[in-house]
């Protein structure tokens, strides 16, 4: 029963990791570049929400909206400064180093918004549900359903609308998409906004579940999102979902059986193991065999 309970806890919490990883993966799938400032833009959203809380009505809903929009705006800021100037140019270092600079900058701004380091972040009070001896934390159940909705919305957008088709086309061949009249710059902004919506939603769920926010949240969510994405397969959307759930599952079991102090040791050990066995991630393409970083695109 312990195993089942821990597995369910882990998978429910992992659905928030899946959202984090999806935002990461979406940017990588379309830009073919890593955005190191991703977690910091989510931290900015959360910090802005806490900072504005005295002026906001609506409790948790107000926090959610500001977190999501703050993360999306910070994401667009990152796109304009770090990705748009390097569009269509080869080489990924300039973008990545620029995101490193923005990471520091956004963390600093967020620290200014959070002068006491640790601030409360309003939780959502719903009773825990007990079913056949299994206890479900209601906030974790909420994680799960919000993640399902967000993933559904993302898939609908990418595979059922022309906007999604244009995004996929420009991921496939940005130069031709541009020459065919695609508004590649606008699509880049939209990609970062969507990634911000996904990540901001994840950030709200995690912060309200913890009941607090600290300036370390940016680094933490970059790590968790990156690990979940790499586990599942770089640039693969189904991979990001599987990677997020797997990360939640593994963390819950390590915490339960070995203690929280072993959690990150095991998590990063798992990442190393998977990268050795399947360098492209579980659902990505084996990079050494194909010579491509990730042929599975969104």
């Amino acid at each position: 029963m312990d195993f089942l309970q821990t597995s369910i806890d882990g998978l429910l919490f992992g659905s928030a990791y899946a959202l984090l990883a999806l935002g990461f993966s979406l940017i990588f799938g379309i830009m073919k570049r890593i955005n190191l400032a991703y977690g910091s833009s989510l931290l900015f959203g959360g910090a802005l929400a806490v900072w504005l809380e005295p002026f906001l009505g609506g409790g948790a809903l107000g926090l959610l909206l500001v977190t999501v929009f703050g993360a999306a705006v910070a994401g667009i800021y990152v796109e304009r400064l770090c990705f748009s100037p390097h569009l269509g140019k080869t080489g990924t270092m300039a973008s990545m180093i620029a995101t490193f600079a923005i990471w520091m900058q956004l963390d600093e701004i967020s620290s200014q918004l959070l002068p006491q380091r640790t601030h409360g972040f309003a939780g959502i009070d719903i009773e825990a549900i007990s079913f056949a001896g299994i206890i479900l934390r209601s906030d974790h159940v909420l994680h799960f359903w919000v993640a399902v909705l967000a993933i559904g919305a993302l898939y609908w957008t990418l595979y059922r609308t022309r906007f999604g088709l244009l995004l996929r086309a420009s991921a496939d061949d940005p130069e031709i998409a541009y020459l065919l009249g695609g508004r590649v710059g606008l699509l880049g902004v939209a990609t970062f906004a969507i990634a911000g919506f996904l990540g901001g939603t994840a950030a709200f769920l995690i912060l309200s579940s913890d009941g607090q926010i600290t300036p370390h949240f940016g680094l933490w969510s970059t790590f968790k999102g990156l690990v979940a994405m790499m586990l599942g397969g770089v640039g693969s959307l189904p991979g990001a979902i599987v990677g997020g759930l797997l990360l939640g599952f593994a963390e819950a079991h390590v915490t339960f059986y070995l203690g929280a102090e072993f959690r990150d040791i095991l998590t990063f050990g798992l990442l190393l193991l998977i990268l050795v066995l399947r360098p492209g991630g579980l659902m990505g393409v084996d990079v050494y065999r194909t010579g491509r970083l990730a042929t599975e695109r969104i």
Partner: protein
Amino acid sequence: MGLAPMLRITGLAKYFGGVRAVDGLDIQIDKGEIFGLIGPNGSGKSTTVNLICGVFPQTSGTIELDNVDLGKMAPHQRIESGVSRTFQNIRLFGELTVWQNLWVAWRDAPGHETNWLVNWFGSPADRQHEIQKLLEFSGLGDHSDKPANSLSFGEQRQLELARAMASKPKLILLDEPAAGMNSEEVADLKERILTMKELGMTVLLVEHVMDLVMSVTDRITVLNFGKPIAEGTPVEIQNNEAVQEAYFGSAKNVEAGA
């Protein structure tokens, strides 16, 4: 004629460092005309196509389409103004289906444009019929849901042509559409270009397959080292000594040009 030409290129030049890829080109193409641009390799034909589409800016000169100056426009603005093209090396979206490749390039007819919200999130159902017609024109009616990279070489070339037509251009630039085609496919392409002419489309054809160029074009400009060396009807060009000199190095190989 009396009417102003549809495309008017005046004194067009493009230098890449010291290389004068295009050096003082004047072309006027009338509406409904199939215009050939030929010349030996490296004579500046593809550079001209790339300049018209806005891949890079010209060093000097002007490019006007229906009296609108394209020269400083971004590629998407040129498409909106009515220019469209195919690519020398096939550049389809390989993982998207045939239908999706056309839907990516689709533009609503002038005067019937929708706003960006409808354009991005609206239903394609009302355009389905027109896209299907375009597929049938290209002989791809049965391949609608196949990924583009599963098509044969000739079919991929046809899809490129259909994709160029999907944006409802005034002027279509065909950059070596017959490259790599077998004689049967070239004959098929010839028919298709002649049909485009019947439909009143205006085409700038860059091509090495002389049989195709001579049988479909109304007028031809010959480039050599970025400069125009001759202009005229296919018959005039075939009998032009400067052209034979440029292609064959001597005026003696008369029959080989046709």
